[in-house]
């Protein structure tokens, strides 16, 4: 198909007609009605990442989160089970919690004092007499979402009928398993996070994590801030990397093939920038193999995994997106570390996170800038298609789906085919 023939967008077009295999149409980024439809057809009918288990470590621990536009509370109850509750009182709709995270034994609505248990059940109502004899507390629990988790990543859905999480993740699961090896033998734990908003459509972010094509251009100033050896590590296109469609909208981009499995190649030389850490660990008394395992895990995995529709696993962090409106998206960059692991390694991970991922990092502001540029450019030439055809020429069948050159737009095609499937429902 030739790329310079373009069809103007028909406003009456069905959403699924906006996505072809090699191109998508501009309304995808800027049509407010389409956004509403996405919230209904996608975010209300899929597994949405809400939190990592380490953010709610104990009985009574909770953290606020979102499923699409809906505010939720993720809370561990007395039995240790995770509940995801819509943050809305069943009386007159006030939010019952505005503390971002913490520990509690119950939730009490600040408006008229209705009290809820950690599983969302309505426990008590002030002056219940005025509700009469047949007042049914059991029918007035906080709305509870279906919950499932994989590798301590907690997902929720508003849809009781969709497939189990493990089935939805499919081949992405083995990549999640590999990603979690960066615990270096310790459980993976959230150390902190960066949060920021960008004036862009959520799909611009969705496309980005397995788009390696942009890396050497947008992140040139980051790469140049590294030493020669690290610079070579981030020089992706000379290596055997690839990007692969994993089905259901998920995709993986392998940037540093030698870091796919962090338990392997432990005898490789320790990179310069980790030499000091390695010495600190030796000084703490760790034996050499353990030192190597921790050091290798500290830099994170050598691939980015994009899980449709709202979370990516990248290097040593999660990138979580939250659609706010058609032109606004909130992002969390969640810094991961080793629970119970050496403080020196976790410190280094936090410094690496600050170096790239934060609002003042050497990477994220440049990403945010180009994402915003896409949204601004969308205003011009609305009839022009947005191309996702890169790498189609030499794409081959991979293990789980089409596999392209690392700089290919295979990951975007994966996302948009899933988008199309869900929007056609």
């Amino acid at each position, binding site marked *: 198909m030739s790329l310079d023939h373009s069809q103007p967008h028909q406003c009456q077009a069905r959403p699924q007609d906006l996505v072809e295999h090699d191109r998508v149409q501009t309304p995808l980024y800027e049509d407010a009605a389409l956004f509403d439809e996405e919230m209904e057809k996608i975010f209300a009918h899929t597994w949405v990442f809400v939190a990592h288990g380490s953010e709610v470590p104990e009985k009574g621990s909770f953290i606020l989160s979102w499923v699409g536009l809906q505010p939720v509370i993720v809370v561990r109850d007395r039995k240790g089970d995770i509940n995801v509750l819509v943050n809305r009182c069943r009386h007159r709709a006030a939010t019952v919690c505005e503390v*971002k995270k913490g520990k509690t034994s119950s939730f009490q609505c600040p408006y008229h004092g209705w009290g809820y248990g950690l599983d969302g059940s309505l426990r008590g109502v002030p002056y219940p007499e005025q509700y009469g004899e047949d007042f049914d507390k059991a029918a007035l629990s906080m709305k509870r979402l279906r919950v499932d988790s994989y590798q301590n990543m907690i997902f929720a859905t508003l849809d009781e009928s969709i497939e189990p999480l493990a089935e939805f993740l499919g081949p992405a699961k083995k990549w999640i398993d590999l990603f979690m090896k960066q615990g270096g033998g310790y459980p993976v734990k959230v150390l902190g996070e960066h*949060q920021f908003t960008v004036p862009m459509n959520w799909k611009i972010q969705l496309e980005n994590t397995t788009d390696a094509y942009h890396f050497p251009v947008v992140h*040139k100033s980051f790469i140049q801030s590294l030493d020669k050896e690290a610079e070579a590590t981030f020089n992706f296109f000379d290596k055997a990397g690839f990007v692969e469609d994993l089905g259901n909208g998920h995709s993986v981009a392998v940037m540093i093939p030698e870091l796919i499995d962090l338990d392997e190649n432990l005898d490789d030389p320790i990179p310069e920038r980790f030499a000091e850490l390695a010495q600190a660990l030796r000084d703490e008394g760790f034996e050499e193999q353990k030192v190597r395992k921790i050091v290798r895990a500290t830099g994170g995995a050598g691939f980015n995994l994009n899980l449709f529709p709202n979370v990516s696993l990248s290097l040593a962090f999660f990138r979580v997106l939250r659609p706010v409106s058609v032109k606004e998206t909130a992002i969390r960059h969640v810094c991961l570390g080793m629970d119970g692991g050496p403080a020196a390694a976790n*410190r280094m991970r*936090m410094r690496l996170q*600050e*170096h790239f991922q934060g*609002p003042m990092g050497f990477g994220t*502001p440049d990403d*945010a800038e180009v994402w915003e540029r896409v949204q601004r450019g969308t205003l011009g030439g609305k009839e022009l298609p947005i191309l996702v055809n890169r790498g189609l020429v030499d794409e081959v069948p991979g293990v789980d789906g089409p596999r392209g050159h690392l700089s290919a737009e295979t990951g975007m095609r994966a996302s948009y085919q899933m988008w199309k499937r869900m929007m056609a429902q």
Partner: protein
Amino acid sequence: MSGIKTMERPSDLNSIGLQELTAFVWREADILDRCDYDAWLALWTDDGHYIVPIGPGENYEDQVNVCYDDAKMRKMRIERFQQGFSISSAPPADTVRTVSRFVLDRVDGDEIVLRCAEHVVENKFGRQRLYAANLTYTLVRTDGGLKIRDKVARLLNSEGELTAFSYLF
């Protein structure tokens, strides 16, 4: 040294010491608004940190911050701003900053701890944003005049959603 040895009247704006300090901080604000980053680096001693924290507490090393720069990172950050191919900082947002509400927190030998409020108005893409921060300076008197050892800029909503920044606070 002028009369700032005691904390008896810490907010006395007539104190000569405080005037000297405010002049120093205002000069830094002017330097940052003009993006005169070499001059900014020259304001620092080598051993301190420039920190924009996220959470409460002062154990910055063991938490994720917006930024936690030692001398090496400060220098790298400035190089990045100056090299001209970071899309977010070339051109950078225009900024106008006001620093006010100075409180002399403590004076300990040659070390002076000063707190103040900062407003930064940022203009980029024809859109303006406003940020407010509480600043804490640890200044030291050296032969070369006052220098910054540590600077902590605690943004309002530091634990919430921010935007990307192509400038310093």
